[in-house]
């Protein structure tokens, strides 16, 4: 018995030794999207933001679960009563990576001022548009004044577009800064073969207390998602950024990898035109709601469970998600739909067009809807267009109906304001031309209130009004599905699809 206990404890000890993090792991991340720039001020796509996180850091950042905003370069902050003046205290001892034009000097308030002003000046889509001025109070204190009260300002600061960059490098390299990025981050970029791969090595002088475990990080860009799944299974990549629903069983069957699914911060829906065309009539819109069996659509699209039914525009990945919004979703009732159409003055003679992009899920959903609407005598034409044409037509309000997909921060502002505020008419977000002054009012309140609970109330109230107006038919929320090799430890799949190798609370390592 004694022998047995000894043996057992020995085995335990050995396995513990093997299970401890080590500092010489190398990882290959496969993504289906290709970064286009390494200059934070110039980026416009998720793929670039993702790789830039290795090199650059922001004042504050989300943890890997994208629930909480944590200090990063900033140590603490204060907000004025009116939500217009934000004062940040920076951590001492935060250093830039060594570069050609500076030797890893300390980050000061001047750098924050420079970086933000640079973003406002050169960014093609100014993320800090609400910023009025940035003032340096002392070496480690910076005061930011906004043009108007803006509660989700911290969320804006988590965006890599608001990263802190060293002036010497940005100006020294000029246009070439994108090829020689230098920030305060845990990894340094050493190679970038465009459309193929990108390599980073650990920044051994990283300022943080916790050193990154990974020694080397390679990103491989594989545009075809099914090929990406194959590359994961054959061990060529350790993390695959997106696994298609159809490939899930195949990948799950592989004993070397795990398939991890988390609810995403996204929503897919049908937006109906409330400016012109037959859908201006609420009865027509309700008839469409009642004629479509959404559960059936989910079954067709996601036989392997990588999507869940949506009942409102605010996704489950957001802290303002309201499960009770379900009550307001009109039930499936084709008989009532027929009756509603008759009341609206249609008798088997209503013809509508729905636009979708090339996204196979949305196209499938539209085709299923086509057959469902046929049963109530509506002739639905499905137009699938390539992205640029799709956006052009839908944003102008020229579509009777279109399938909208929206993915952003978990702050409800990014869903409710961008898709339903009347000022967003004429953009892809509000291509239905939705205009409800009460919703506008609630959004304004949500933007200018500091208390989170109160904000939740305003946005949820707005969401209810939107659902009652029946202009926006939520279909599904896509799960974020990633494939991860079992040797990768400490990795959390983030609801915003960002792959975080090193973030507040996250430090990935590779089991030997």
């Amino acid at each position, binding site marked *: 018995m004694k022998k047995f206990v000894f043996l057992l404890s020995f085995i335990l000890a050995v396995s513990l030794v093997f299970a401890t993090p080590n500092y010489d792991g190398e990882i290959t991340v496969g993504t289906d999207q*290709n970064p*286009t*720039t390494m*200059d934070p001020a*110039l980026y*416009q*796509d998720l793929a670039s933001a993702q790789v830039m996180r290795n090199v650059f850091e922001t004042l504050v950042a989300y943890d890997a679960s994208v629930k909480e905003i944590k200090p990063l370069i900033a140590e603490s902050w204060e907000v004025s009563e009116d939500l217009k003046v934000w004062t940040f205290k920076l951590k001492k001892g935060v250093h830039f990576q060594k570069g050609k034009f500076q030797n890893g000097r300390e980050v000061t308030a001047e750098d924050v001022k420079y970086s933000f002003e640079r973003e406002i000046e050169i960014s*093609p*889509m*100014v993320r800090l*548009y609400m910023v009025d001025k940035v003032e340096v109070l002392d070496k480690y204190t910076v005061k930011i004044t906004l043009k108007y009260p803006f509660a989700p300002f911290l969320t804006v600061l988590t965006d890599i577009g608001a990263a802190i960059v060293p002036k010497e490098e940005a100006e020294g390299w000029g*246009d070439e800064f*994108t090829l020689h990025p230098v920030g305060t981050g845990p990894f340094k970029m050493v190679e970038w*073969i*465009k*459309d*193929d*791969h990108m390599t980073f090595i650990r920044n051994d002088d990283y300022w943080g207390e916790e050193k990154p475990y990974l020694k080397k990080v390679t990103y*491989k*860009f*594989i*545009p*075809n998602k*099914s*090929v990406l799944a*194959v*590359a994961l*299974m*054959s061990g*060529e990549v350790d993390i695959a950024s997106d696994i298609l629903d159809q490939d899930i069983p195949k990948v799950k069957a592989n004993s070397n990898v795990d398939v991890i699914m988390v609810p995403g911060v996204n929503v897919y829906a049908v937006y109906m035109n409330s400016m012109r065309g037959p859908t201006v009539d609420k009865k027509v819109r309700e008839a469409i709601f009642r004629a479509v069996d959404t559960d059936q659509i989910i079954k067709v699209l996601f036989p392997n469970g990588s999507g869940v039914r949506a009942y409102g525009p605010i996704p489950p990945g957001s802290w303002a998600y309201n499960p009770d919004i379900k009550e307001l979703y009109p039930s499936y009732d084709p008989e009532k739909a027929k009756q509603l159409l008759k009341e609206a003055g249609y008798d088997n003679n209503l013809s509508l067009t729905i636009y979708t992009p090339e996204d196979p899920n949305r196209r499938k959903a539209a085709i299923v809807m086509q057959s469902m609407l046929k049963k109530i005598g509506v002739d639905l034409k499905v137009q699938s267009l*390539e*992205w*640029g*044409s799709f*956006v*052009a*037509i839908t*944003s102008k309000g020229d579509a009777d109906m279109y399938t909208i997909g929206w993915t*952003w921060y978990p702050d409800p502002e990014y869903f409710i304001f*961008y898709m339903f505020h009347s000022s967003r008419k*004429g*953009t*892809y*977000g509000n291509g239905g031309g939705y205009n409800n002054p009460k919703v506008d009012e609630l959004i304004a309140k949500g933007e200018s209130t500091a208390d989170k609970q109160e904000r939740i109330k305003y946005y949820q109230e707005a969401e209810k009004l939107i659902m009652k107006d029946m202009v926006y038919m939520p279909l599904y929320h896509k799960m974020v599905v990633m494939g991860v090799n079992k040797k990768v430890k400490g990795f959390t799949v983030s609801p915003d699809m960002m792959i975080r190798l090193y973030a507040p609370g996250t430090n990935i390592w590779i089991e030997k």
Partner: protein
Amino acid sequence: MRKYLIKRSLQIIPTLFFVLFITFFLMKLIPGDPAMVILGPEARAEDVLKFKQQLGLDKPVLIQFLMYLKRVLTGDFGKSLIYKQDVLSLIIERFPTTLTLSVLALFIATVVGIPAGILSAIKHNTFWDLLITVLALIGISIPIFWFGMVLIIVFALKLGWLPSVGLGNLENGLWDVIKHLILPSFALGILSMGTITRFTRSSMLEVLRQDYIRTAYAKGLRKRLIIYRHALRNALVPIVTVIGLQLGNLLAGAVLTETVFALPGLGKLMVDAIMRRDFMLVQGEVLFVAIIYIFVNLAVDIFYALINPKIRLSYERG
């Protein structure tokens, strides 16, 4: 010969102008505002306007074209809107991948295609002829996209012989680079292989029916000698043209292969540029590919003229 060369070279100028003109206006005609596509659905109206002004997109189209033409004539292809880098440098970065891939694909296609075509012709109307014809037709009609996936699943995933995606690294030796190129160039070459086989077959059949071949047989020459010395040489003239044209097609058509195998080539760059309405990059790339295409054709024509005096003479008289 000199007269012929000058004449052929002069034809290039209007062709290129035409290519430039068409591409420019096609990019204007397709729906989708570049500013809106590039800035994304969440862009604010102010940013869209600023973006347009910076690029001169608020000016009349004809003025925009003349401005672009002036730039190109001074050798400036402009800056890519998505990569914020010089268009020419982006193209030159990727050209070697596409060129290697195409040449290798053409090599595989030729090495397999010509012998298969010859075999098919001399075994005319037998089982072998039928088999090769069927295979060649499959090669011509198979979707590269699907075929590429099948190759990856069989050779990379099941057998594990070859890597599935990406470029090799020369630091790991030449074999690493070649290893990565075998599957994609085979997938890309299959179409040309079919075409070359079909062409070789029909060209050989035609020549084999000629009187001088019958004469050669009547003289009692050995079959091998007749086929390789007399028939193939004459049959080769149109085949060379087809092969030359195939290179142009392969260069321009490597898009699907590059997408499936995740290779950083011109095709991939082009698709991205069109999808994101990066018109500077699209125009630059089309022009670049057109120049290559024209020069390959020119080279084929000159080669053709060298081996076929009839063409040379017709130009010298005219």
